[in-house]
């Protein structure tokens, strides 16, 4: 990755306009042809420096719901509970974290009213209380990683 790639990664995190030729302006500013820019973006995707380029969708604003949930799982049942929680297709991410609340997962449902039912099922099947922490206000999503 050279300095031009770094400039591309920094600039493309900010977002492109919705217009017929959205790459033209960025290419001019970086001193590249559009084709050079596009082939570099493709290589950054192939090399997994970028995970994705395109619209960043907001699940909640599309009618779905996301909630962050935490549980206090006994150490001797951790693997068993992990398998049970991960078996729910609505569980999108699940992390072990270093805390009394040691399992943190995100529940994504297509309709907001489904989330509560999934939480009750997880409590029943694991025997652990779920601490539901849906967002009340969002301040920022996205990160400008300087490279």
């Amino acid at each position, binding site marked *: 990755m050279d300095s031009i790639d770094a400039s591309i990664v920094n600039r493309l995190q900010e977002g492109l306009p919705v217009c*017929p030729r959205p790459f033209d302006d960025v290419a001019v500013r970086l001193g590249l042809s559009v084709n050079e820019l596009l082939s570099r973006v493709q290589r950054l995707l192939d090399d997994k*420096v970028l995970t994705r380029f*395109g619209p960043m969708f907001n699940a909640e604003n599309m009618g779905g719901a996301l909630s962050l949930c935490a549980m206090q799982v006994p150490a001797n049942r951790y693997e068993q509970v992990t398998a049970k929680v991960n078996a729910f297709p609505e569980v999108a991410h699940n992390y072990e974290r*270093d805390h009394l609340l040691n399992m943190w997962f995100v529940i994504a449902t297509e309709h907001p009213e489904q989330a509560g039912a999934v939480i009750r099922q997880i409590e029943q099947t694991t025997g652990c209380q779920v601490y539901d922490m849906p967002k009340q206000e969002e301040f920022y999503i996205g990160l400008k990683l300087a490279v």
Partner: protein
Amino acid sequence: MTGYPQALSTAQHASRILDDTDRRIIVATQAGLPLVAEPYAALARQLGLETDEVLQRVAAMQENGMIRRIAAVPNHYALGYTVNGMSVWNVTDDHISELGRQVGALDYVSHCYHRPRHLPLWPYNLFAMVHGRNSQDVEAKVTGIATLLGDHCRGHEVLYSKRILKKTGLRIKG
């Protein structure tokens, strides 16, 4: 999700205005936008639509917040940001909106939310995900947040992830 009527009404509003053509555009771009000079024309050909209609619909979805922006998503790990800490803060309720905006505006904070407390076990109501190149880097950034919050913060912790147990992309069905 009851108890947060504002979020619910936004969602209901969105699902009402999202039609089948919008859903086809979403499904076609979930993996990404075509990497060509005229991506919306390529998308239109693929879906049997006019380019102008695709542009108008994508612009409308961005305007009403269904699309945050058309942008690249970097791989934190590949860029050397290998440590992330979920910093959680007990902030006075009267100041959380203003302080949340200030914390969210920091360039090293990716996600920043106001979430409910669960007393007595969980006194924290502000969550800010902090990314760094190593744990000292993350700790220095957390100190920066603590300074910003000052007396309005009654305590904080940083929860580091020990293990990814599951990670799947969010998918919208067609």
